[in-house]
Structures are given as C-alpha cells and as structure tokens.
C-alpha cells in the first residue's frame, strides 16, 4: 500500500475535518455532554447537598476526576473514539477518500488526535465543573499543582481510552460491537480478572489498574488504597509507576497498530 508524506498543513486540516465530522454528530455530542458534564454536575449537586460545610477540596477533586477518568468520562472517550473509527466506513465515504490518492494510513492516523481532542473537550469541561464545585463548596482552597495533577490524569486516561477505541473500532468496523466490547471489558471483565488472584502480577496489565496506579495522591494497589474498584476493597495489587506507564502506552499504541494494519487491507 502506498504511503505518503503528509505536510503539517494538510495533517492539521485533515484533523480539523475529522473534528468537524464528530462535532456535527448531534446525538453523540449530546450523549457525551450528559456523560461528562451533566453527570459531574449532578454528582456534585448530590454530594454537596449531603455535606455539612463543604467537601474537602482534595476529596472533591479526587471524586470528580475519577468520574471522568474511570467511569462516565471514560464512556465519553469510548463513544467518540468508536465514532471516529467507524464513521467513514459506515457512511461509505472511506472508498471515496481512498480514491483521492491519500494513503490509508494518513486517513486513519488523523482520526486519533481528532477523537482525542473532542473527547478531551468534554472531559476537561467536566473537570472544570469539578474544580468549580470543589472550590465553591466551601471545603477550603486547593494547590494549583494538585489541580494540574488531576487534570493531567484525566487527560491521560481520556487519551488512552479514546485511542484504544479508535483502533478497535477501525479493526471491527462496527461501532455497536466495539462499544459493547470495550465497555464490557472495562466494566465487567476487568473487575473479574482483577479479582482472579491466581493471575498474580498479570493483572498489572489491566488498563484500569494501571490508570488507578497513576491517580494523583492515591496510588491504588497499596495497602492504604487497595483496589481500583470500590467493589473489591480487599484486593492488593502494588505496581510501579514505570510499569503503569508502559501498560498504558501498550493499551494506546497496540490498538492503533492493529487498526492501521486493518485499514491497509480493508476493502474499499
């Protein structure tokens, strides 16, 4: 398959074009808004109403960022990533784009930053809501460095899950199949595998475990904070930060490699 040299200008315009495709998809944007922003607002409304004198800022930041990095924001990343990975094929436009002479790899690679940018837009607004709620709730002040760490964690989680979703969606060519598989993996399979103690350190390869390990101020897997899931409080799975970063890199890069391989051989 022909590969091409893409200029920076062309790459930027192709990424903007991908963003245009995504942001004009109203139902997906609405759903993403509800997941990343609406639920964050709802969460803080509920816990603020239950608290007396405000929630401590670190706790509020931790909860808000976890909502975005591990739960509902993660669903947003999956939603947008799978959309980016399948939109051209399902609409039938992919063949017309290939017929322009642009390499298939170029057409694939621009999907990743575009999807990440759109997913981040939602999750960072959600995070801004968390920060606002934490500071406005009367729970004290927050170090800017701590806010930046939590923001970085949300960015990292969103990027990895979005890239993973783009790659898998390109591989399967089916949005619904990919969403089912990725959500099922993240919510059910990960919890089951994490609890399978006989797997030992192999469980360090789980995406959610590695993400939890990098959570600011709360290294999960230590005896103080044993589980990545509150449903499994008794489990202990310590891992190094370097291992966690390598695991995340693998979860982001391998699906992209697989997706790129698939798109080269895909029937156009």
């Amino acid at each position, binding site marked *: 398959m022909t590969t091409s040299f893409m200029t920076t200008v062309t790459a930027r315009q192709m990424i903007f074009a991908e963003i245009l*495709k995504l942001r004009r998809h109203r139902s997906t944007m609405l759903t993403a808004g509800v997941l990343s922003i609406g639920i964050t607002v709802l969460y803080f409304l509920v816990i603020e109403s239950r608290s007396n004198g405000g929630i401590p800022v670190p706790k509020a930041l931790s909860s808000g960022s976890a909502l975005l990095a591990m739960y509902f924001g993660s669903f947003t990343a999956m939603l947008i990533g799978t959309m980016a990975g399948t939109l051209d094929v399902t609409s039938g436009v992919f063949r017309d784009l290939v017929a322009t002479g642009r390499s298939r790899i170029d057409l694939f690679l621009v999907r990743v930053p575009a999807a990440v940018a759109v997913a981040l837009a939602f999750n960072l607004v959600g995070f801004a809501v968390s920060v606002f709620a934490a500071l406005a709730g009367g729970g004290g002040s927050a170090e800017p460095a701590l806010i930046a760490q939590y923001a970085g964690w949300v960015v990292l989680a969103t990027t990895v899950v979005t890239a993973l979703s783009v790659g898998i969606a390109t591989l399967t060519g089916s949005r619904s199949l990919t969403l089912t598989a990725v959500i099922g993996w993240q919510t059910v399979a990960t919890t089951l595998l994490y609890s399978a103690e006989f797997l030992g350190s192999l469980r360090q390869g789980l995406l959610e475990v590695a993400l939890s390990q990098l959570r600011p101020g709360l290294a999960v897997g230590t005896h103080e904070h044993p589980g990545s899931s509150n449903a499994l409080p008794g489990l202990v799975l310590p891992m190094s930060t370097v291992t966690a970063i390598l695991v995340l890199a693998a979860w982001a890069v391998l699906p992209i490699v697989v997706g790129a391989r698939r798109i080269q051989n895909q029937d156009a």
Partner: protein
Amino acid sequence: MNESSLTITTRGLTKRFGHRTAVADLDLAVPSGRAFGLLGHNGAGKTTLIRLLLGLLQPDSGSITIAGHRLPEHRQEVLAGVGAIIEEPHFHGHLSGRENLRIVAAVRGPHTFPRIEPALARVGLLERGGDRVRTYSQGMRQRLGIARCLLADPHLLILDEPMNGLDPGGILQLRQLIAELVAEGRTVVLSSHLLGEIEKTCQAVAVIDQGRIVWQGAIADLVGGAPQYDINCDPTSLAVAMLSADPTVVQVTARTDGVRVTVADPSDVSRINARLIGAGVAVSGVSPVRISLEDRFLQLTTRTGDARP
C-alpha cells in the same frame, strides 16, 4: 493510436476473486479529451475495472498507465488529478454538502479549498450547499458527487453509473455538464448500462462482457458498417431473385412485407428501386435501417444466464 494521446492504457489486466475472473486479460485504451463509455451488463466487470483504475483493488496481473504514469507506483500523483464516483456517491448525511466538500478538500490538500464554491455553483448546489446531505434527493447527491470530483480540477473523471436515480431533467443537465467538461479538454470515462445515454454522451466506447473487452473504438464505427435498407414490395420472391443476382447488393433477405438489402454504396438504392419497378415489382416504400447501439451491444455481449461459447 499513439500512447501519448491516451489517458488510460491497460495491458493484460486481470483480477480474480477466488475462482471467478472478474477482469480477464483486458487491454483498454481511453483517448484523451473524449467522453468514453464503458458498456456492459450488470456483473460484466465494469466496476471492478474502475476500482482497479483507482487503485482500490490490486490486479493479479497486467499493467495500468494513467496520464503516462504507472499504477500503483505513482498512485498518489495520478489520483491527485482524477475525480471519481464509484457505483454511487456516498456522503456524511449529518454534514452539509459544503462541509462534505471541505472534508475531501482537506484530504486532497489546501490548494483545493478555493474550488469548493465554484464546484457547488457549477452543479447548481450553491443555494442548498448549507443543507444537510440527508435532506438531498438522489439527483442532488449525484450532482454533489460531481462537485466532489471537480475539487481535484481533474484531467480525468471516472463516473460509474452517474445517471442512476436522475429524472429526465437531471440526466439532461448531467449530459450537458459532461459535454462542457470534455470541451475543456478533460477525459470523462462513463460507465453505464443506459445505452441511449452513452450513445448521446460519448464519442467512443469499450464493450465489456464477462470481464473481457469485446469491442472498443468510436461509436460511429460500432453502429456503422455497410448501409442497409428495408424495401416494402410485392412480390417478394421476384425481388429476392432479382437482387440476389445484382452485383451491387451485398446481401438480401426476405421479410414479410418486402426485402432487406445491404449495399456497398448508398447511392445504389435509387437504381435498385428503379430496377424493381421496371421489372413489375410494386414498391411501396424504401427506408434506411438504423442499427442502434443497443442492437450492436446485444449482438456483442452474452445476456445474463447465457454461456459464452
């Protein structure tokens, strides 16, 4: 024909899908600056050929040269100057026509953005360019497909069944647009099973049957040949006997209401008429037999379900 006057040349082009050969040892020569028709029944191999020409499929053997460049080696530079509609134009329905063109312009390169508005204007979609494509009629989608082709400022347009779904007015507009594009020096390859449209639009054709080219050249040559005339006369037997012995008549066959004669020179017809009348044959009419493209197409090709001998 000189290679330099050809926009597309294929040599021994072959593509198989499993045991089925979709395109077999195909030698195609498309002249530059003409409207060229690809004729064939459904499943004859037209779309497979187009997909090969656009690098969407890799041939099993043979070569493709477009504008002097070999494929797939020079695929990107060749296709930068080619606009194509394959089977039917597809778009993102949730985007407007203009936004769909922006997507393709981004892929083709920054120099193509200024062509968006002129392209929309040329196909008559300037006013509806801001509407979502899912609200477009089939004809509007076809026209938007042509506009998308024009973003490349193409020297070659490959249009696969572009008349599909168009009403008579739309067909007429498209025919005029193709004529304009050809007048600008562009080459248009038009695949269709609408023989009448090919005859009205194209100057040359290739007839494809079961993956092979069974005829290619100018349409005038395809439907031409020795002139034929139907002569309504009585008695037929006397007319057949007389004309069979006439050295200027190439062939004569009896019909229910007269005879059909093939002559080497059309000017002989009036003399033949006078001879018949002089011999006591009552001649009530003489009319030229027009061989249509459809007639020749059906003679050349195997109809669905028929086996090639």
